[in-house]
């Protein structure tokens, strides 16, 4: 068990490394010069020549200060020009300890503390530190993700059990076809439809169309409980949209699992012993069919996170999804890269937790069996 945990955590590291290097590459590939964006140079007609010269000086200074003239990575493939007038080019490798990636990742001790300490630089558009911006906004994404996944498990486990225990009933058939339909519905369409139906003055205007709390803020005398009550109408539609896909998916999985378990030998034995049907289902089949649901968590979790981009921008929820959408539109690359890195990190952690929980729940699983895809 401990060996498994160690190896699992060890395998988590290369994924993390690739994620970090990929984020850095994306940051470097992003169009536009970061110093230009930070100084917001005006090279138009209104700037006089002296001002332009000053700004060019500034740019040079800051490029040097921020280390943007350094080599990009530890290893570089450089082309040496040999011969008269450099007509022959010979490839070679140069190594440099002080480079842009190193400064970006570990900090330069002067202007940034490095990604490792959670410093992603400064947003181009709001001039706010990126980690502060994300710290404000990550809570909504986490809230909706966890709440919807929690809700999905809460609803779909009893529902799947009920359907599987009596598959011939009208209730089961109705539900199955309903959930198969539900699973194919694109969430952004459902969100738009719900807004059209319930937040539209032409049809029904019972729910607010956007945001997560009253626009004018809470009344000053409201206590914690009142605030939650005031926020509920804002949360109804997003919660439905965030969770219905997972509910449909999980119900189907649960139903498949229980049906599968019910056809096994030990269930027949349990029935032959004379146990009641209720006891057979709840004490035998139910427990064994729970294990795969843990693995499913690792596919539900990233789904919920990336689904948030669309849903948050539809409902204007100030979370990570809306942040990445807005910063993509305003070409605010430090924020984009930060959100990308953090989302990847959360997904990776979700995988890690899932795998550990899986072994914890089913000790028969050995590392070699699980880790090979």
């Amino acid at each position, binding site marked *: 068990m401990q060996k498994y945990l160690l190896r699992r955590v060890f*395998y988590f590291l*290369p*994924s993390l490394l*690739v*994620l970090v290097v*990929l984020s850095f590459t*994306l940051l470097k*590939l*992003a*169009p536009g010069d970061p110093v230009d964006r930070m100084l917001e140079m005006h090279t138009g007609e209104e700037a006089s020549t002296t001002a332009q010269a000053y700004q060019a000086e500034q740019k040079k200074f800051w490029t040097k200060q921020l280390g943007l003239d350094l080599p990009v990575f530890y290893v570089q*493939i450089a*082309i040496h020009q040999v011969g008269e007038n450099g*007509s*022959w*080019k*010979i*490839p070679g490798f140069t190594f440099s300890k002080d480079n842009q990636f190193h400064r970006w990742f570990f900090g330069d001790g002067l202007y940034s503390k490095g990604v490792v300490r959670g410093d992603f630089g400064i947003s181009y558009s709001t001039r706010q530190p990126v980690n502060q911006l994300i710290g404000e906004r990550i809570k909504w994404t986490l809230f909706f993700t966890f709440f919807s996944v929690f809700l999905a498990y809460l609803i779909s486990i009893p529902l799947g059990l009920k359907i599987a225990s009596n598959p011939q009933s009208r209730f089961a058939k109705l539900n199955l076809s309903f959930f*198969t*339909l539900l*699973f*194919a*519905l*694109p969430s*952004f*369409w459902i969100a*738009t*439809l719900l*807004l*059209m139906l319930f*937040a*539209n003055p*032409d049809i029904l205007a019972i729910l607010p169309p956007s945001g997560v709390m009253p626009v004018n803020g809470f009344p000053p005398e409201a206590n914690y409980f009142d605030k939650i009550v005031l926020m509920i109408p804002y949360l109804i539609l997003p919660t439905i949209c965030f969770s219905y896909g997972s509910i449909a998916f999980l119900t189907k999985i649960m139903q498949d699992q229980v049906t599968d378990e019910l056809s096994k030998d030990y269930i027949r034995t349990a029935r032959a012993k004379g146990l009641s049907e209720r006891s057979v289902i709840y004490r035998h089949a139910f427990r064994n069919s729970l294990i795969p649901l843990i693995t499913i968590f690792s596919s539900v979790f*990233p789904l919920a*996170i*990336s*689904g948030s*981009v*669309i849903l948050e*921008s*539809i409902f204007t929820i100030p979370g990570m999804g809306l942040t*990445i*959408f807005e910063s*993509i*539109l305003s*070409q605010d690359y430090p924020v*984009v*890269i930060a*959100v*990308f890195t953090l*989302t*990847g990190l959360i*997904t*990776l952690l979700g*995988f890690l937790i899932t795998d550990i929980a899986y072994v914890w729940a089913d000790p028969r699983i050995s590392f070699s069996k699980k*880790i*090979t*895809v």
Partner: protein
Amino acid sequence: MRRRRNIKLKRKASCWHKIFWTFCLIALLAPLLSNRDPLLVKVNNQWFSPGLNNKPYIIIEQANGQLLTLRKTEIDWKTFPADWILFAPVTYNPGSSDPYNMNYRSPFEKQFYATSDGSIAELPARHRHWLGTGKTGADVLAGLIHGTRFSLLIGILSILMASVIGLFLGGIAGYFGDRGLSIKKFNVLFIIILLVPVILLSLNFPMPGNLPSALQIFLRLLLVAIQLLLLTKLPYYGKSSYLQSQITIPVDSILSRIIEIFISLPRLVLILTLAAMIRPSVTTIILVIGLSSWTELARIFRAELLKWREALFTESARAMAFPPIRIIFFHLLPNAIAPLRVAIIFGIAGAILVESALSFLGIGVPQDVVTWGSLLASGREQFSAWWLILLPGIALFLLLYSLNHMGAQSKFRKIPVFH
């Protein structure tokens, strides 16, 4: 290896299959189904087909012998004095504005057009916007028809790309396993010492600067290929037994790690980030979706190969000294078709969903292309335009559901296997 054609299973195409193939047909025939320019026109005993070619004008020989050149975009075909005219079923292009039916004209409202004498009259049924219009008067039905084409194009091409990558990598990993692929140490040395510099050198080889860049790239790649060919035919294979001994490459573990890393990257966020940085175009979307969805296919093909690589027919193929590529793709691939088909169908559904989400957000998809997602997004600006919200969603749902249904069905379909 003979194809088994003699056994045919009786299959009844379900209604969802029919719906899917209808969508494919609509996508193929989109320019014939919805076109602003008529498919056939007869003027002064001359036939034209302005809707079927890309020429920007038509030249009519008049009764007095003079030639009259007309720009296609300037002709109002609704009032065009033709002897005989054959319109497409929907007489509008997607996204083109209609100044007389602007501001979200509902399908049930009265629609207007300008007659030849300049007065405004109600549209005849032939030219009606059957499913209403958008803000600029763009026909919704035309958008839906051309959106089908866009969705299916992106879904199918990106999964095609994903399956090329996935089948290749999964095939190598599954067939060779961790111990199957070994390589002489000499070759490893050779690759490190000689190949890398040679490739780099030929990529930096001085070229005359006035060549066009595409030709330069081609020439450089040609250089690389020639040098690779020359080097691999190198006669020297070393006398020392150390260089002759082999090292095994654990391709299987390597691929498993790569797949794990790829799965853990947040797909939609990565696609959004890339799409925001690269200039939006159809090729970009296909590349990005294709590159991020090959893992599932590689996994499945690898797992299937694990099942079959010790089978007798594989062994006999190996005994006949067939190259691994031939065994993998001509002997083993046909046996793994059934689960791969399921994955491909679900993959297409996923790619279409991602594409429509991207165009709904307006990121990565060119602004002038009308898709289901962009129609839906335009409906979000005006909630009273229910036809803009309801219809693209229904189309998307039908396509996705039919794909899901086909995938779930072919899971249970028995495919006879003979060895």
